[in-house]
């Protein structure tokens, strides 16, 4: 997995960023007609769409919960979203990401308002470039808001990582592939708790703490971008409605 890469030049990272700097992020809200809520995110080289349906009656019936709605999250990568063509259809990786995405988003939603119902989140990656799961969660949270699903707070997500023994924010492709650790995080900003936490690589306890702190800062920046996108959507609509 290791490769002879020079990750830092004059304190700048391989793509020119500072260690605590996010890639460019752009979020659009309400991009689809058919879905109840939707969003589009560009995050570095990632391009991801999200559509939300629901709440509606859950089926198959045996999935229904008598005290709240269930949340289904589907993460899919287009076959042409990566260098080597991916076989169309569900993959083991996609299934796992769908599962952790659900776990990351559900604590922020008031699903108890809708017993026996389901809310479906569909995340479609059109162009992949490291960090798709964080970008997908970020977009999904905005699409859920756009669908009017009642929520306690938005869920921003962002990875921290370790490269050449330095803790950095929001890994790019090379850092992800050849770095020392990757720590995708999702934050519940008001509760100040992490609802997504995965880690692969090699960290000391101190590095983990540093990475959690830096990742939290990144999430809070993403949070601002999420709010901006939603605000812009409302304002635009208000202007149009006048």
């Amino acid at each position, binding site marked *: 997995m290791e490769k002879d890469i020079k990750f830092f030049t004059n304190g700048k990272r391989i793509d020119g960023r500072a260690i605590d700097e996010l890639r460019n992020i752009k979020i659009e809200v309400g991009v689809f007609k*058919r879905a109840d809520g939707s969003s589009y995110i560009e995050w570095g080289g990632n391009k991801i769409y999200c559509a939300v*349906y629901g709440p509606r009656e859950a089926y198959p019936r045996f999935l229904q919960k008598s005290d709240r709605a269930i949340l289904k999250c589907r993460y899919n990568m287009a076959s042409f*979203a990566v260098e080597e063509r991916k076989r169309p259809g569900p993959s083991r990786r996609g299934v796992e990401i769908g599962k952790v995405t659900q776990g990351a988003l559900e604590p922020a939603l008031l699903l108890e308002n809708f017993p026996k119902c389901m809310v*479906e989140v569909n995340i479609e990656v*059109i*162009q992949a470039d490291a960090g798709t799961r964080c970008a997908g969660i970020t977009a999904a949270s905005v699409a859920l808001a756009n669908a009017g699903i009642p929520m306690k707070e938005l869920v921003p997500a962002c990875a921290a990582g370790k490269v050449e023994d330095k803790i950095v924010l929001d890994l790019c492709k090379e850092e992800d592939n050849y770095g020392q650790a990757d720590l995708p995080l999702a934050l519940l900003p008001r509760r100040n708790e992490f609802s997504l936490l995965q880690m692969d690589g090699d960290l000391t306890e101190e590095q983990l703490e540093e990475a959690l702190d830096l990742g939290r800062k990144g999430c809070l920046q993403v949070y601002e971008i999420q709010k901006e996108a939603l605000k812009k959507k409302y304002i635009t609509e208000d202007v149009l409605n006048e």
Partner: protein
Amino acid sequence: MSSVLSDIKKDYIISLLKNGKREDGRGLNDMRDLKIELGIANKAEGSCFVQIGDTKVIAGVKCETGAPFPDTPNQGVFTTNAELIPMASPDFEAGPPREDSIELARIVDRGIRESGAIDFQKLVIKEGELVRVLFVDIHIMDYNGNLFDAAGIAAIGALYNTKMPVLDEEGKKTEELMPLPMKKIPVPCTYAKIADSILYDPSMEEESVMDSRITATTEDNGRISAMQKGDVGSFKKEEILDIVRRSKVKGDEVRALLKEKFSEMR
């Protein structure tokens, strides 16, 4: 839709059609707004986003190399796949009618393959052994009627947008890029038959009450390269010929926009 609601909607749409009108104000021969964007996914060798009204489709092309089929040793391999992902419609979720996506993929595939749009012989690297293998994958993102035209236009757009690596004598990729050997721009035009009216580019509402559906694919030279009657229902000969005539005109309009996009690309 319950059949009662469906009947009411159908009656309303028919009563409008008697006066030559459609729910959304279009004439029988009008397409909704068409938007084409090339090169929207840079990991794909070629890609195209197509929007017809609120229907949104993305097509991507991936190029690999591999063995040709035994019965066509002197031709490249071409595969079309369509995904009616649950993103695009609440109905795609409930055990999606897989056969719809198969039909869609096969119609798009044949519309391109049989029209001779691609010079498959130029995709041969070493006859009988190594050829280019093209995958066109079509993602339906937002379903609001007339997938056939959106998917067909996106596929041909993505193919014209494709830059694939030039190969050296041993079949290894070089840094240089080259376009696909494209020869024609086939464009599908789809019509719904409702009562006795035949309307171009049906909306989702119109599709939900239509008696039958037909797609005609034409080329630059005004020739017909593919037709497909879909769903239940039937067509008179005169209706078929009328559809073909209309498709030549509408197909040329779509082709003009495609050509404009292709020239911007260079």
